[in-house]
């Protein structure tokens, strides 16, 4: 179909691409969704219910034998990372969007909470988010399904934290705690990050993409299409994308009146950097030179501990939907010597994995007994901190590492500056205090170095075209019919999990795109 010209060509089918595709298609927009991986069937293709002893290596592969997808970076599938995410869904607060106004550090987003609130609500009503109304200044409430009860281990941490004046709340997740008209409620089998085979947990394929196709909207899905370039005309308009077939490597093209790049942070930045032209010799839409800069992934620690109150208790089926509780950011109003804050995810460990046993001392019956006694008491604790943009943290292309398609790897460079070092030290210190107050025996993690997670930034939104790549609607400052929507657009990362915000941004961008299509601006 190379001659057809779609209204919108979306690259990537995850949280952003899937949401955009459905929201645009419902309005009658003619959409092409281009995904580098294959189609997958949530119900049959993942190893959701496998146990480690079924495999000689004792590692459970993501996909069942013979089912392609998701086993390597270039071989994902329709649904993107929403197939494997943990579904934590927070609204960002006004302070998250306007951090610089509060402490002078980092950069403001070009939008306010009030711009996003209607879109958060839209997404919550559409996909179903469970949670409690907590009335916290820094974590806005939303339209929630009932929360899921906390685990015994959560209640112990909640009690310990309360002694320090720190709140522990119910987690909020894009997982159904009550059935919807088309999806069952979660049944707590405990393996959420291996593909939820009933789609109680949101994934963009089953909740957004497939229903839009079945409803007969104009939505064509090109799977197995590894996009290598976004094409731009001499009139400074993007005209579509060029791709290589994932297996045959045959070349292909999808043409459109507009293009949205939603390949997940680093891959989106890489695709734009690869799309060099006479107009844009350093990468598409990069007249500012900011593309790849302002990379602000979360940084996280990981403490492993045992709650002494649970040692020796009988083993129960408490896997639930992984983490049921959360420590929301509490530092904003406390005295500290750094900017921004942190929150703590905990208890998302899966009881199918007992990797900590090797670090326990001793041998023989005493060793075996001590593992058994501690098994119900084991919990992990992961504080997440906000990184400020710095010159040493960026994404670029590594032409010394070409993949099987001849495309350069996206290279992430991360430098922790003084603010991150202070914040990290403080979040580990607070974590230890909370755990001590909860009666925990800490096994590991107090001396670990920070690790990054939740890739964000690199293609940030902003009001100033010299200092940002996109405007307040995720549209390129340079190219009027090019959009980027995913984690790369974040101007500030907050400490909160980003996907809910990515989906709300996608819904907001969809409004803007369809309005401009109607006005003939594309």
């Amino acid at each position: 179909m190379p001659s057809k010209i779609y209204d919108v060509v979306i690259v990537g089918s995850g949280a952003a691409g899937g949401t955009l595709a459905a929201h645009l298609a419902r309005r009658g927009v003619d959409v092409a969704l281009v995904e580098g991986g294959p189609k997958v069937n949530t119900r049959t293709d993942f190893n959701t219910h496998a146990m480690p002893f079924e495999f000689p290596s004792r590692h459970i592969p993501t996909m069942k034998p013979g089912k392609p997808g998701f086993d390597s970076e270039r071989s994902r599938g329709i649904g993107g990372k929403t197939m494997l995410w943990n579904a934590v869904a927070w609204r960002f607060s006004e302070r998250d969007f306007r951090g610089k106004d509060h402490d002078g550090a980092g950069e403001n987003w070009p939008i306010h909470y009030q711009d996003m609130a209607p879109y958060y609500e839209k997404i919550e009503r559409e996909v179903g988010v469970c949670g409690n109304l907590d009335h916290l200044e820094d974590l806005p409430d939303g339209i929630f399904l009932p929360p899921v009860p906390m685990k015994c281990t959560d209640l112990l941490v909640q009690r310990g934290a309360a002694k320090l004046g720190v709140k522990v709340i119910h987690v909020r997740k894009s997982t159904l705690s009550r059935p919807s008209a088309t999806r069952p409620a979660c049944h707590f089998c405990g393996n959420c990050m291996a593909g939820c085979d009933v789609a109680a947990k949101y994934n963009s394929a089953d909740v957004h993409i497939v229903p839009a196709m079945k409803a007969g909207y104009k939505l064509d899905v090109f799977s197995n299409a590894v996009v290598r370039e976004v094409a731009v005309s001499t009139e400074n308009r993007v005209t579509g994308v060029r791709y290589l077939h994932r297996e045959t490597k045959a070349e292909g093209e999808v043409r459109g009146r507009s293009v949205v790049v939603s390949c997940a942070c680093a891959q989106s930045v890489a695709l734009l950097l690869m799309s060099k032209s006479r107009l844009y010799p350093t990468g598409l839409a990069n007249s500012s030179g900011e593309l790849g800069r302002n990379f602000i992934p979360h940084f996280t620690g990981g403490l492993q501990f045992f709650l002494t109150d649970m040692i020796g208790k009988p083993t129960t089926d408490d896997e639930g939907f992984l983490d049921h509780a959360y420590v929301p950011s509490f530092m904003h109003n406390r005295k500290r010597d750094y900017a921004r804050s942190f929150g703590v995810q905990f208890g998302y460990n899966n009881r199918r994995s007992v990797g900590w046993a090797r670090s326990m001392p001793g041998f023989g019956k005493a060793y075996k007994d001590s593992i058994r006694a501690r098994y119900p008491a084991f919990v992990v604790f992961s504080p997440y901190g906000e990184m400020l943009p710095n010159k040493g943290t960026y994404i670029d292309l590594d032409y010394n590492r070409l993949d099987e398609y001849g495309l350069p790897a996206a290279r992430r460079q991360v430098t922790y500056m003084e603010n991150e070092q202070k914040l990290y030290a403080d979040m580990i210190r607070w974590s230890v205090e909370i755990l001590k107050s909860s009666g925990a025996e800490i096994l590991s993690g107090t001396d670990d170095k920070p690790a990054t997670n939740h890739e964000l930034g690199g293609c940030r939104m902003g009001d100033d075209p010299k200092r940002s790549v996109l405007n307040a609607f995720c549209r390129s400052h340079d190219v009027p019919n090019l959009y980027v929507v995913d984690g790369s657009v974040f101007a500030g990362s907050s400490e909160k999990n980003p996907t809910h915000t990515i989906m709300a941004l996608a819904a907001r961008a969809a409004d803007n795109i369809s309005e401009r299509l109607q006005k003939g601006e594309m």
Partner: protein
Amino acid sequence: MPDRREALKIMGAIGTTCAFPFASNELYGQHVHPPAGAAAGYGPPRFFTPEEFATVSRVADLIIPPTDTPGAVQAGVPAYIDYVVASNQEWRKLYREGIAWLHEQPDELAALTRYIDQPGDELPARFFRAIKSMTADGFYTSREGLVVDLGYKGNTALASFPSCEIPEH
């Protein structure tokens, strides 16, 4: 909503169809939790000699002995260790040298007691670090370790998530 007692009954099992209704549509009409698959088999050792395999088996059972639940050998840990070691040049060297060293010791248990959990680059310390880690990994990923010994109860379908039953919580 089923009551607690009913919910607990439903908590039965790997291998049963969920006993509560899902929205009846084509995709999710009936959700079956398949029974856990058979444990992977390993066949005869690929790397260890019979004598080495016997030594690995003795050491593994010293680390995790049979008690009221199966021990490392009953859980097939030596075959798992052989599988891991066979595929890696460095492991092969370490195990070959470590076992040879152990064969020269007058008392296996005394050697293990002295060197297990010891840091450092000495051969016996490195050897016991490796075999303890692999014994723990192999045992606690086996059905005997995970399900029988630890009593793993997850991977089921619950009608609702049970509130904490420990009264003082």
